[in-house]
């Protein structure tokens, strides 16, 4: 970034001690994350999700057990690791939550309005999407991320995702890259992975969706983008829209080949 000379003189250099101290704190935060990962309530959400997967709902009073997540009706093993991908029946690229919504409306006959009334839950009452995401993502643990990139619409979605990543808009002129653009940057104590680079995207995409200790909630990627756009001071993205799926698709392709090890634990 070009800085005018006056501004460049402004940065009071960080002494060696303070650089070392920053190094320690990064190491200690890594230990914090590793310790909270050892004992995580995320598994409680997987149990809830399993019950919801089997629960008959909607006017057609059927469960989601026939839902085709890309590997055939009802096949859960490794399905999450191959999303987002193109689905012929819906003629569009879908991530897990968009695909679940599709099954809720087609298989269970539920209206989109009812099924999306509460897509983001609370600590007291997690949403269906959150618990289902925990359960289904867990079925891909140990499998390599392999999102779709062969279909024309998959390539289009990837290109749109990449353009969105660098698209500056909103009252504060932010793009994703404004915060996730340079190595070693932090907001407060929160380090910011450079998600358009594979080595930074891999550990992140491999551990979403995740349990967030700060509010005891299980959070999904659709929520993650929703909350980022909120802080970018833009209007709200539609749940499961092509733009949100394109961004998730772009980051997942950037991280492809990594072994999925979620659901994870986040601050």
């Amino acid at each position: 970034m070009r800085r005018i000379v006056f501004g460049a003189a402004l940065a009071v250099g960080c002494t060696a001690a303070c650089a070392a101290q920053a190094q320690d704190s990064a190491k200690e935060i890594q230990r914090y994350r590793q310790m909270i990962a050892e004992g995580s309530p995320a598994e409680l959400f997987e149990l809830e999700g399993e019950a919801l997967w089997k629960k008959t709902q909607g006017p057609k009073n059927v469960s989601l057990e026939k839902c085709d997540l890309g590997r055939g009706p009802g096949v859960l093993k490794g399905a999450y690791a191959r999303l987002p991908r193109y689905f012929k029946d819906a003629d569009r690229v879908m991530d897990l939550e968009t695909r679940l919504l599709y099954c809720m409306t087609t298989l269970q006959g539920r209206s989109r309005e009812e099924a999306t009334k509460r897509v983001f839950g609370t600590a007291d009452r997690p949403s269906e999407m959150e618990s289902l995401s925990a359960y289904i993502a867990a079925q891909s643990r140990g499998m390599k991320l392999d999102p779709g990139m062969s279909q024309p619409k998959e390539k289009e979605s990837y290109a749109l995702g990449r353009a969105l990543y660098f698209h500056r808009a909103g009252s504060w002129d932010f793009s994703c890259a404004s915060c996730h653009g340079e190595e070693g940057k932090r907001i407060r104590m929160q380090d910011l992975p450079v998600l358009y680079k594979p080595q930074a995207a891999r550990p992140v995409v491999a551990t979403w969706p995740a349990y967030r200790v700060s509010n005891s909630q299980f959070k999904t990627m659709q929520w993650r983008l929703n909350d980022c756009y909120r802080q970018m001071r833009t209007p709200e993205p539609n749940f499961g829209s092509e733009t949100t799926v394109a961004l998730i698709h772009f980051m997942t392709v950037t991280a492809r080949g990594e072994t999925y090890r979620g659901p994870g634990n986040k601050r």
Partner: protein
Amino acid sequence: MKRAALLSACVALQAWADPSPTDVQKLMQRDFHPRGQATMERLAQDGVQRVCTETRDRPPAEVAKALEADQMKTIAFPQGASLMGDWKRGETIAQSGRGLTWNDKPGEPGGGSCYNCHELSPQEFSHGTIGPSLRGFGKSRGASAEIQRYVYGKIYNAKAYNLCSQMPRLGLSGTLTPEQIKDLVALLLDPASPVNQ
């Protein structure tokens, strides 16, 4: 007009495969909806946002200079000798991340979110590193009228000094009032401020 010619020159730089900023803007306008005070107008890119998007924040020098000059004209410097308010209020403003989101109530005082990106007073352990550390900023620069004006202007509209800076245009966007900006100027320049201890 010269500036339009300069702008169109940038379009060629951007990779052909990705949709153009205009295409992306249309898709966002289709896929987003207003909520609270966050209205759809916010998705309409202005010249600064479009050029910085197209050039991945590396605009050609003469384009940057021309657009920075435009942005400088937007800064309304308050009258009066001093642009320094109360650094104690400045610290509260720097700590607060509120303002302009869809769950902030309009009219409620916003914050500068300064600690998100900058180190300021040494007591605050949890500070960001996207922006440079501002510790001791006033100690080495004094508090002359000229430096007060620079700091006020930079907070009001950072793009007037560095076109594709990641720093939000806190004054122009209506996030902070002139009084709040003057309190932040004091936080940075007032010798009594913790930043300068």
